[in-house]
């Protein structure tokens, strides 16, 4: 190590001569932290996203490598949030990578005391059968004066405020076509 490098290694020298007179940034950096690279720098990619919690709509940058989310940060470009996230938004990475997340379909038979496994395709098929049965059983064609009703009150649905507009659109469209009127979401709670 030359003398120059040695002197430049002193934080106080860097503080006095560099761009960090308060000694809270680059001047105070140790060799170890200088050698570290941020996950955000080595990420395979970054997706521009939005916080999934409240409706402030803070911008997020989602960094990912090898198909896994490695970091979620506030988006400094956002005119709404200016890079900030609250405790919930900051916990988004823990949310999406949580080991508690369910990744398998679970099925509870009537009167059962435990869950069982079920294939996703089978579940989809069973649900479709149950919809058709519920419609057939509870379909109302016309009211007592013969005016059209075209509906079933045997099916209900709740939820939508955490979902995308495109999803709400398909949900409403499909349920309306199947005559299921009783669609509600968090806007009414």
């Amino acid at each position, binding site marked *: 190590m030359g003398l120059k490098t040695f002197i430049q290694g002193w934080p106080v020298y860097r503080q006095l001569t560099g761009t960090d007179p308060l000694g809270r940034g680059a001047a105070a950096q140790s060799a170890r932290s200088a050698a570290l690279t941020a996950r955000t720098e080595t990420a395979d990619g970054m997706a521009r996203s939005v916080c999934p919690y409240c409706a402030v709509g803070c911008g997020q940058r989602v960094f990912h490598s090898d198909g896994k989310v490695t970091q979620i940060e506030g988006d400094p470009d956002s005119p709404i949030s200016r890079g900030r996230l609250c405790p919930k938004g900051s916990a988004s990475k823990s949310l999406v990578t949580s080991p508690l997340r369910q990744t*398998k379909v679970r099925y509870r038979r009537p009167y059962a005391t435990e869950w069982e496994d079920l294939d996703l395709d089978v579940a989809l098929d069973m649900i479709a059968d149950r919809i058709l049965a519920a419609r057939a059983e509870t379909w109302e064609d016309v009211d007592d004066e013969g005016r059209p009703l075209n509906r079933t009150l045997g099916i209900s649905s709740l939820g939508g405020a955490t*979902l995308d507009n495109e999803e709400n659109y398909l949900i409403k469209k499909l349920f309306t076509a199947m005559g299921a009127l009783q669609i509600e979401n968090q806007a009414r709670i």
Partner: protein
Amino acid sequence: MAEAHPVGFQWVMEAKKRGAKVFHVDPRFTRTSALADTYLPIRAGTDIALLGGVVRYILDNELDFREYVLAYTNAANIVSERFADTEDLDGLFSGYNPDTGSYDHASWQYEGQEDNAKVRGTGKERDSASGLEHESHGEPVPAQAPRDETLQHPRCVYQILKRHFSRYTPEMVARVCGIPEEKFLELARAWTENSGRERTGALVYSVGWTQHSVGVQYIRTGSIIQTLLGNMGRPGGGILALRGHASIQGSTDIPTLFNLLPGYLPMPHHADHPTFDRWVDSIRHPGQKGFWGNSRAFAASLLKAYWGDAATPENDFCYGYMPRMTGDHGTYQQVLNMIDGKVKGYFLLGQNPAVGSAHGRAQRLGMANLDWLVVRDLFMIESATFWKNGPEVATGEIVPEECRTEVFFLPAASHVEKEGTFTQTQRLLQWREKAVDPPGDARSELWFFYHLGRVLREKLAGSTERRDRALLDLAWDYPTHGPHAEPSAEAVLKEINGYEVATGRPLNAFGEARDDGSTAIGCWIYSGVYADGVNQAARRRSRHEQDWVAAEWGWAWPANRRTLYNRASADPEGRPWSERKKYVWWDPDAGEWTGYDVPDFEKTKPPSYRPPEGASGPAALAGDDPFVMQGDGKAWLYAPSGVLDGPLPTHYEPAESPMRNPLYGQQANPTRKIYEHPINRMNPSPPEPHSQVFPYVFTVSRLTEHHTAGGMSRTVPRLAELQPEMFVEVSPELAGEVGLAHLGWAHLISGRAVIEARVLVTDRLTPLRVDGRIIHQVWLPYHFGTEGLVTGDSANDLFGITLDPNVLIQESKVGTCDIRPGRRPTGPPLLDLVGDYQRRAGMTPDRKIPLVTTDAAGGDDAAGSTDEQSPAAHQDGEPHA
């Protein structure tokens, strides 16, 4: 706001730095109070009395922005002589029908227009939450109303307002709300001083205002103040709703709600809308002023988007396929129907009613009585496991071996595992890019519903049943990609935006909508989000590279407009009210409106424009009518129709209150929606006997570290660790009175449930001196349940079900309870304890809740008659003791 919308609150702090005064009104001292200039503690459920006091202060001191009020509001309109006010009828308005619990609006109309009232009885409107349609437009009124520009006519809106609020004096505010007079006056002074030509004031609220049996009228009172002060349509002004879920605005615009279709078109009603023409005319009101005149094109284009090639002008675009409402099909009615065995299947899509909805026990017992339940969520939530470990399993009310509900739990994709748009609280759509694939069986709702529709249609192929035509004819071809055949969210967004059917060209604005089947539009108010074939919601021009309006970040409906009604930011001649508050103005040289935002006005209509005789639709709006979605282009201080519980807001006590209404004999909202079901017993309030059995007021809200029913926060280690336990905040005085120890246990009892919580004794809660007595309030977070990393009893279990009549929102920000030291009983003794309280409070199954508590409703009004009647006959000016 600092607690529940922390990053939004940075802008309040920016304003404070520049000299704004911040007031915080809340039953509990919070982080927001700590950062405000002044904190006003308030008795939960009395905000109309406080705001009414501000209205009176403005009018008594003539502090309204008179030029604005005269030009842009209905202050000068003269109201029918048949109208009788709450001043005359002891808390009721004219037209009340005690048999239906609703109003006939004929006597509320402007002079000479009594017979134009669209609705006579309004019970039907209440059941279908029709107030929600007004999110995008006002109720129709005939354009020409008699006016008195001097505001002296005794029946002009200005004078009616003055009389109506004359009782809301500073003393009365103190008596009702528990806010000391000097604090109230400080607020009223600051608010009025900060409004006018040079300055504007903003009003920010959240569900602390909406979740009441008079929720809509809370907001109405706020808008009356903001309109009188000239704070609407101007920069730094407005009434800002802070909403609590990432896309709750979007799920109202593109509604997963029973009574609405995309863009606030009403769901058809079996009696009112038997045909396409009747349905369209009920929206459009032929001959009406304003932009709603084009609604035939919006309606036809929606049906065209739904049924594609099958929808033609000849078959009314398949209108015959639409399901019809017959009454109240809202979520609370559904739950009671589940308990009664009328519902077979239930989908839960990222919502957890076992914890998040009022009356958790009713929610869980309803779910335990279904044929099948589909839960789609990221985590295992209480609404999926009620049969295994819900509170009713402990009490023996649900026995797993006897519970018949078949449950499918399907894991959902998270926000980074799919692409699409959220609409945030200011109507701004922001597109999210996908970062990674969802794990295992997790899928987006887009995937689930697209493929569910595909499978249903495959199963029905060849069906000759009439009821299956709507599914088989549905336009359901979306391009898919990837190993799981994920449908394209962008293709769906294009359909929402709308396109020309012949060419597929995306529309640039809803003005291009046609009623002949040549355009298809999924949600007309979102037209323009795909203008020029570009996903405008994906725009991310940095805030450093554009002005403060930031028009190139995302896309706001309608037409990328950031502030609604911004024509009002200029004076009637089109000049900015002041240099300081310049926003949108008329450029006479260019002959067009211009400014920082997209003008909310026809671009080339000059301020001097006057509509020709007989004009209708947009052409009937004058060049100085800024409120273009209102039938008369004006802001309404007085609402002759459209608000079901009164043309003006009135203070009513919450459905459950320990107090008699100090203002009127009428105790609570006489039009509130009540459900007399054996499971839904409401605690008695005066003048009913036994209200002292539940002597304390409780209110609930959010913690910064948790989110709603906890499904996305009690499951996340960092957040769970920050707020690990259910607790109740009580004042030192109440702790002393009841014998509660800090960090010890307490249990709270209502007529529905008993829950327990750790005690936090804190002076964040203050006993309030109200009407000569002390009222104690307690506060609870509502995030806890039986699943997740941290668990606890659910505060929402304490609430019963009572709804606002306009939009069917439940009263879940205020109720009454008892609180006792120690833990609650477990098992069957818990039910005995609730039963004991019900007995002591006289809550027998046959008890009828008295909707009307004044006899002023007698006489002609009682039958909802619109005949001449004399208000003087009902005069009862004295506030009820």
